[in-house]
């Protein structure tokens, strides 16, 4: 918590300490119906942030891509007898805001309100309806179905989106992660309102929920708010674990022709999961390889030295099961072969020789020195809480963040990359015009 930070830190200490410890104090408990709650008390601003996360992402779509996302989109379109207008007018007249979304691992709702009880209480009552009593009105279902069909077409005119969807399909094959969160024409057209209701009943339950709260509440108040909000949700069951991801057996390549001036390139393979013991060495190694913006090796080789791309990068996306390790760039069509060569060579060099000591020192300084920015606002903290809760990371994840980074060695990075990244078994997706 930030008030604690102030009293603990002396300016002189700050000057010399890059391993600044400023993690917020996390409280956690479980509601009687089995929802897990993470809370950080923060009274500096008279506001409350709540993020409710369910294991209800596209990985739970089954055979109908788009099911999870559409369920999430319908929640505030009618609930407890109120229609979409009444819910929106109610929230916005109180200065509160309600949001939500759904990607592969999770479906979530976000809520922000001032902490003034006259505003907070009615806003929470509306939020509670949306969370507990969505009506999935037939008319709204039909409209949102059409709008999702339009979004699918919209993604189809963007080469970057086309590449991303094809990339996940090649990476994950028949694993649930291959499902396109936004769905496609066929799957969206086949969706029914009953499917959404069934999906909601199965996954939007207490034992499948994590509730992150940050803001101007005492612990006692936070407990009351959370109990009011989710206390009546059926306990249900936690969603079963997702199937394991099978590693790629060989390289694969897909070229999709698109009338664009640039080619979008994605290269990669399944990488790490949240909580993976190799995560920190890989994170730090990748920071040097392609994760640190313009000072990374990939950006230096592709952009700074050759002017081939505006954005060239690599990253690990840790998910419940191994998410992608991705290298990517966009370049004008006739340069794409050259750019891909540079990208691959940069990866190969990194795998062969590893990072230099100088690079490790610089990366360590940036990551640990930048820690205060990771937790400098309520909106950032609430996202961390949701992530820690959802992936069942240790509650001292943030406290241990800098010491863990400090402890990563060059050998660990080299070893982790050798074991976890195989450049001969990667998928390459190219979407672009003729070269």
């Amino acid at each position: 918590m930030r008030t604690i930070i102030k009293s603990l830190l002396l300016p002189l200490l700050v000057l010399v300490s890059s391993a600044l410890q400023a993690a917020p104090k996390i409280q956690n408990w479980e509601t009687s119906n089995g929802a897990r709650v993470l809370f950080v008390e923060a009274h500096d601003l008279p506001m409350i942030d709540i993020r409710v996360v369910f294991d209800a992402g596209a990985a739970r779509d089954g055979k109908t891509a788009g099911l999870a996302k559409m369920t999430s989109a319908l929640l505030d379109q009618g609930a407890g007898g109120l229609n979409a207008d009444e819910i929106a007018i109610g929230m916005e007249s109180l200065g509160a805001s309600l949001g939500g979304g759904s990607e592969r691992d999770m479906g979530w709702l976000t809520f922000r309100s001032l902490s003034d009880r006259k505003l907070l209480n009615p806003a929470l009552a509306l939020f509670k309806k949306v969370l507990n009593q969505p009506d999935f009105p037939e008319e709204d279902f039909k409209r949102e179905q059409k709008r999702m069909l339009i979004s699918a077409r919209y993604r189809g005119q963007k080469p970057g989106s086309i590449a991303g969807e094809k990339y996940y399909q090649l990476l994950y094959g028949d694993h649930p992660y291959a499902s396109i969160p936004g769905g496609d024409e066929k799957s969206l057209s086949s969706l029914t309102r009953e499917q959404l209701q069934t999906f909601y009943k199965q996954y939007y339950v207490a034992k499948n929920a994590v509730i992150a709260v940050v803001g101007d509440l005492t612990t006692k108040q936070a407990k009351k708010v959370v109990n009011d909000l989710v206390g009546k949700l059926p306990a249900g069951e936690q969603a079963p674990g997702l199937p394991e991801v099978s590693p790629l057996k060989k390289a694969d390549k897909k070229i999709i022709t698109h009338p664009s001036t640039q080619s979008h390139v994605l290269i990669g393979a399944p990488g790490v999961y949240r909580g993976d013991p190799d995560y920190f060495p890989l994170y730090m190694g990748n920071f040097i390889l392609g994760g640190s913006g313009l000072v990374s090796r990939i950006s230096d080789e592709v952009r700074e030295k050759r002017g081939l791309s505006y954005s060239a990068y690599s990253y690990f996306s840790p998910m419940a099961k191994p998410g992608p390790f991705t290298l990517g760039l966009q370049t004008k069509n006739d340069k794409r072969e050259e750019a891909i060569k540079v990208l691959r060579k940069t990866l190969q060099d990194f795998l062969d020789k590893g990072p230099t000591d100088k690079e490790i020192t610089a990366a360590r300084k940036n990551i640990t020195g930048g820690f205060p920015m990771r937790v400098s606002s309520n909106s950032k903290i609430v996202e961390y809480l949701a992530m820690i809760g959802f992936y069942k990371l240790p509650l001292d994840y943030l406290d241990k963040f800098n010491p863990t980074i400090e402890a990563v060695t060059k050998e660990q990075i080299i070893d982790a990359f050798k074991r976890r990244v195989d450049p001969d078994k990667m998928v390459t997706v190219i979407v672009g015009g003729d070269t």
Partner: protein
Amino acid sequence: MTRRMYMRHFVTLAGLAVASVSLLVSAAQKNGAVHEYQLDNGLKLIVKEDHRAPIMVSQVWYKVGSSYEHDGITGLSHVLEHMMFKGTEKYPSGEFSRIISENGGRENAFTSSDYTAYFQTMEKSRLPVSFELEADRMRNLLIPDEEFLKEVKVVMEERRMRTDDNPQALTYEQFKATAFVSSPSRIPVIGWMDDLENMEVADLRDWYQKWYAPNNATVVVVGDVDPDEVHALAKKHFGPLKADKISPPKPRKEIKQLGQKRIVVKAPAELPFLTMGYKVPILLDAETAWEPYALDVLAGVLDGGNSARLSSQLVRGSEIAASAGAGYDMYDRLGGFFIMQGTPSAEHSVKELEEALLAQIKQMQEKPVSQAELDRVKAQIRSAKVYELDSVFYQAMQIGMLETVGIEWQELDRYSGEIDKVTPDQVIQVAKKYLVADKLTVAELDPQPIDPNKPPSRDSGAGHGH
């Protein structure tokens, strides 16, 4: 709708909390006092305390952007922004970013029509590092030929990515260039491709000489800092820099529009798209001071959230639009523009969407907005005032932007009071006076087949590799 901003390094604009046009854009902030200083060389320093976390953001704002450019040199301000990382005598190319990174900092830069800004977010004790480097490149940039030749290619790739391969952005660019004739508001921030291809390093050196000086800059620091210490530090680093003669840009006022304009943009796309814009006053050129605030309220009634009219009546309700939005930025330096955009739903045409949007305007001209709508707009502003304090970056951004376009930061304190004073009748008045056909430009994206003659894809690898 967000400001069109171009950044040196790609991040999502949402992550930056970029000033969005409508009502949630700004408000007064009483929590942290704002301290203003001016150095002898003309540099302005504005410091705002926010002691919630041991961090600070330091931003340097220059009064230059695409609205300072003219035909033939479009995109120059933005390319110069990229070149600002390419070294000085003291800190050669790459050193700036390396040093910031090593100090745990996050940095980037952005260019818009009316400003170019550079920022670092760092742990609070690192402010001297930021000032040292920023002061150095304010006057000592080298702009080496070979670095320029590479970097301008990067910018061309940026243009391809953001505009040329993005049919809606392409439509918007041509729409702006059609609406405005004599005003530089027509110039795209990224620049026309032909101008980028013909840009020379000498152009950049001239541009740097012309605009980069302490008396054309505002430094904004927000965070866990002591204002007087920041002032002393600024004097130490920026104080020795020499002021220069800055010739303010000529007014280049837009000529009077003499009738509606309309264009069609054909590009490969899946979906049609419509964008409409009315010429309206802005805070800086308004003859009647309340008019911009009334237009802002009007934009909020149409598009200030999910309960606003476009969402509730066109996306829901008649279901003519799959998406629809309205926006107005009264803090532009030139060329006030009230914009409406949208994509029709599958059962409706662009023409029907246009008619529906025009009907919304007509309603604004004829029927007073309800008290409930006004109250909702004002409630959103009151809460936004608090929410924005959650981001030091955003607080600094508002101050820097207002100062740089020539509105003082005190506008942040005035804004909500002025909005509170807006009456339903004033909203009708501005709708009648400005949202009229003769001030309107309409652009329609006419989607062309993505690839009618070729199979959609070809495999060059065999099967799935699981």
